């Protein structure tokens, strides 16, 4: 059972602020969705390997050759806050 307090905690982990209405609505919806997911509890998966990737590729490597990269100006073209060619982030604490 997911409570509104749980939803707030998940929101904080996922870095999404929630309004009170959202918290209330999501708590209700999460419970019905997770209730549905419970059907998987009844599937016998003993000794079944998980499928992370369907075609079973392993590491794919390429030669370590320097290639053309984006010019700084293009890389920063969509950045709202920048200074001297750097991206300016909010403070950490």
């Amino acid at each position: 059972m997911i409570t509104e307090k749980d939803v707030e905690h998940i929101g904080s982990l996922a870095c999404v602020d929630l309004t009170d209405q959202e918290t209330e609505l999501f708590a209700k919806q999460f419970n019905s969705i997770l209730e549905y997911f419970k059907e998987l509890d009844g599937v016998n998966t003993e000794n079944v390997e998980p499928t992370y990737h369907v075609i079973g590729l392993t590491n794919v490597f390429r030669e370590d050759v320097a290639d053309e990269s984006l010019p700084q100006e293009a890389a920063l073209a969509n950045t709202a806050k920048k200074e001297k060619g750097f991206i300016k982030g909010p403070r950490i604490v």
Partner: protein
Amino acid sequence: MPAASSYAESAQRTFERIEKSKLNAFITLNKQQALQTARDVDDGKVTGRLAGMTVAVKDCITTKGLQTTCASKILTGYVPPFDAEVVARLRHEGAVITGKTNMDEFAMGTSTESSYYGPTRNPWDLTRVPGGSSGGSAAAVAGLESRMALGTDTGGSVRCPAAFCGVVGIKPTYGLVSRYGVVEYANSLEQVGPIARNVPDAALLLDVIAGGDPKDSTSVAEADKVTYTDHLVDDVKGLTIGVPEEFFGEGLDKRVEKAVWDGIMTLNKLGADYRKVSLPHTKYSLSAYYIIAMCEASSNLARFDGLRYGLRTGKDENWHTTFSRIRAEGFGAEVKRRIMLGTYALSEGYYGQYYLKALQVRTLIKNDFERAFKDVDVMAAPTMPAPAFRLGEKTDDPLSMYLADVNTLPVNLAGIPSISVPCGFAGRLPIGMQLMGKFFDEPLLIRTAYTFECNTDFQKLPEGF
């Protein structure tokens, strides 16, 4: 209206149609560049397999110099500095890229209603959804606003709107098409796929986009050996078609059931054999899919924080406060739901219960297909359990929306290819039949779909178009 005498004139007419359209199929138009490309084709300066053909591109596929939003507020105004591999291939072949099509926000949805830019409407009935999440792409093709389009299919997002809009849609085998430059939602499930009004156009577009790409380590070179248009052969003699009984279960609209069975009988009359098969874990696809997709989404969408690109509003406080506020403002409700449920499922103590379990069930679903494909060449089933629903009908209940994907999800979990072709009508609403194939067996899917198309008459235009 007389036929256009040049590609430029034809493109011009396409834009006139788009600009007065009621469908809301596009978020951003590429008019100036498109008309220039069309003129260059007319002048012989641009050539290629798609020379002069109008192609619309789903808005989660990156286009250099052309706004790419994923139908989200958080990416509004984002103009990518590079092209997705599939877009580079379109340009290389002389395609006239009309614009970026509307979609469910970050491809999370079945109706194109969760777009920040408002819903797209179904050209067959403007009060109904076009399906999703590539609803803009399918509506644009069905409504003659582009000859063909690219969509992405994570859990049915090419095939669902193709079925609802009466056009052809292909979900390629996982790895067949490069995902470089495709904004990720659930990376182990999604593929870019073509949408077109007929099988030959869809095969042609697949020829252009498929192939190995060193920039996507999950892509394979399988398609480099194949020319899909060579498989446009009107012949299904000797094929065995599997009919998975689980796809014809409870909740299937009777009209859809009949149209799909009629389709199977048509192929039977043309020389294909058919037999019922069983995919016993199908009923668990919905839960397995949503858990995997939500978990992958919670990780993939962590990059949207407004720092390097995208929405960056208000005054900066510390990073957690700032990012949490930007993400709250920038994401819509369905995106928040999926990110949060994914975060929950991956959080300490729940990993084994949800994510790992879902991946194990995925193995069982994949095994079901492999077993069944030992006895049959292709499988046929309804793409969607019902025709297009009304706008607003499912928006209040996320679970009811998820349930609409029940027949398309297993294909993505297994990674196999599938094509949806029009196979009938419920009143005036189109119905789609889904053909599913073995890994990398797109050639046989195309042959089967083409044979069906050649011998039926469901490739119609919506009334008034």
